[in-house]
């Protein structure tokens, strides 16, 4: 598959790309300036996505969705990566972890989410628990048949628009040789649950309008029925479903890099200095050559990782490599694009400075570059007993 996409895959990518160009690009400047997505624009994007059958296309046919393969879905997200994250949030892609819903959770959470009736957000990170997720302090105590939750979460993307949340909460502690280790459980939490509140987070340099929020739990009582998966099984639920978010970061980085590259390429072909197009200078043209080579490499690496998931092969290391390489590639490509544009590249009248700022977070969220390097090297060394 790696060396050629099928006609359908090509058409899927083309369709999403033209959707992004026509439905997302025109609103980007407004979102960038105000830091908000007006509700009518959000609803319009959501309705169009539903109408086209792309809403929740990462979900299987058994729940009435398109059931795209990992490669197909990576192509969808690659093209979405070209556009504003704040806006394409409404090109709904609910967390596939919702497939872990059971019993009446299916009708309360899973189905409304894939139909676009309720939006979800995922909450793991805390001020004291970033890469070290087991360091979380947000905890739930059993009280009769219920759980009582206290603590907070931050950096919660999409929480401003979410109707419910998938929250990872500590439900106990085991003593191990390496010290105490938290047991973690995933909970479904509705907006408006007493003792649970959502408030504004920090102002981020990356992805304006795609807000990060703070969740607070103050003696928030959750019935047992709100547990997603097994009690203390949070890590299993995470490992079964959350690998995909790293592919998302990788493939969106590729899409955005391609958009940035087009700006750089055209600028190099048009801008004149010293009596010739700047693209004639090897100082510029060789940068372009390096940029496109890295973009193509990241694209193939990412699709190859997705293809391994489709073939049910071990992919943890490959996904980490794709996330690491693609996000770092995007940093280099956006930086080089600014260099080619010179001073104009830094002006807000032009979108280059935005892509450069937005690129920064890709090396941090969904597992920092350092965590990815740890995963990759551990995978290789463990096999040798090191």
């Amino acid at each position, binding site marked *: 598959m790696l060396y050629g996409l099928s*006609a*359908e895959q*090509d*058409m*899927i990518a083309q*369709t999403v790309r*033209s*959707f992004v160009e026509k439905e997302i690009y025109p609103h980007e400047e407004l979102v960038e300036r105000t830091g908000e997505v007006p509700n009518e624009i959000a609803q319009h994007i959501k309705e169009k996505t539903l*109408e*086209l*059958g*792309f809403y929740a*296309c990462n979900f299987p046919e058994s729940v009435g969705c*398109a059931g*795209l393969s990992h490669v197909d879905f990576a192509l969808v997200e690659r093209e979405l990566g070209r556009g504003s994250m704040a806006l394409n949030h409404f090109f709904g892609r609910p967390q596939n972890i919702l497939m872990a819903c059971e019993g009446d959770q299916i009708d309360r959470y899973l189905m409304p989410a894939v139909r676009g009736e309720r939006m979800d957000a995922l909450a793991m990170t805390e001020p004291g628990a970033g890469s070290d997720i087991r360091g979380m302090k947000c905890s739930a105590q059993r009280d009769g048949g219920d759980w009582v939750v206290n603590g907070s979460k931050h950096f919660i993307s999409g929480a401003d628009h979410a109707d419910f949340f998938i929250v990872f909460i500590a439900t106990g502690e085991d003593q191990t040789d390496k010290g105490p280790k938290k047991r973690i459980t995933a909970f479904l939490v509705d907006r408006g649950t007493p003792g649970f509140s959502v408030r504004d987070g920090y102002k981020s340099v990356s992805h304006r309008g795609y807000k990060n929020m703070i969740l607070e739990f103050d003696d928030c009582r959750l019935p047992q029925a709100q547990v997603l998966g097994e009690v203390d099984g949070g890590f299993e639920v995470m490992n079964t479903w959350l690998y995909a978010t790293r592919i998302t970061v990788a493939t969106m980085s590729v899409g955005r890099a391609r958009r940035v590259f087009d700006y750089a390429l055209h600028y190099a072909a048009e801008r004149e200095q010293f009596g010739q197009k700047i693209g004639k200078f090897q100082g510029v043209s060789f940068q372009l050559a390096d940029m496109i080579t890295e973009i193509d490499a990241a694209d193939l690496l990412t699709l190859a990782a997705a293809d391994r998931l489709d073939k049910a092969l071990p992919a943890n290391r490959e996904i980490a490599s794709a996330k690491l390489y693609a996000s770092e590639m995007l940093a280099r490509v956006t930086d080089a694009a600014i260099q080619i544009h010179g001073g104009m590249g830094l002006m807000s009248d032009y979108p280059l400075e935005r892509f450069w700022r937005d690129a920064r977070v890709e090396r941090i969220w969904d597992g920092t570059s350092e965590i990815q390097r740890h995963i990759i090297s551990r995978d290789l060394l463990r096999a040798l007993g090191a």
Partner: protein
Amino acid sequence: MKVLVPVKRVIDYNVKVRVKADGSGVDLANVKMSMNPFDEIAVEQAIRLKEAGQADEVVAVSIGVKQNQETLRTALAMGADRAILVVATEDVHADIEPLAVAKILKAVIDEEQPGIVLAGKQAIDNDMNATGQMLAALTGWSQATFVSELDIQGDSALVTREVDGGLQTIKVSMPTIVTVDLRLNEPRYASLPNIMKAKKKPMDEKTPADLGVDIAPRLTIVSTGEPEARAAGIKVGSVDELVEKLKEVGAV
């Protein structure tokens, strides 16, 4: 009623075209190709007729190279029911002339018996704007060109045409050949279920010989050139100077 929609594979409108070194035409090797935008509008209109219950089948036909099946798949993904591919050449640079295309379409019409043909008013590659008119002559059907509104009323259709001076409304008898203009509609995106279904929809493959049509070229391209580069302008300091300069070059 069956609707026949001819679709042409052309160089994508976003691509900056380059003239081949020998001046024989535009370089199409490894260039992004897409459905002619006017044909996309025709496909959209055909699907709308079907959705409105005025048509029961939409058949897309494309004439050219084997790769035209991609163009037809796009039409199928938008909602056409089946496709006919007429492979007329192996050379991506060979352009089948309007008269040959019209003759092939006439043969397809004889087989398919559509109630209407919806075509783009012209292809954006060579801007011939001739196939629809020639097809009307060959079939003896009525024709409505440059159409921005279409209202089928039984055995006739009320049609608004975009003409130089404004809008003209005419009534044509059915069956008819309609060539569509930019403002008729805004083509839809292919939906994901339709993209997945497109592969399963039937696509017949034929050759001009199967249809008894001779496509030998009748026109000769003498040369193809880039548009002349615009000469640099000058800045003037005042209205008087502007008038003086305009007089100098004989513009006023």
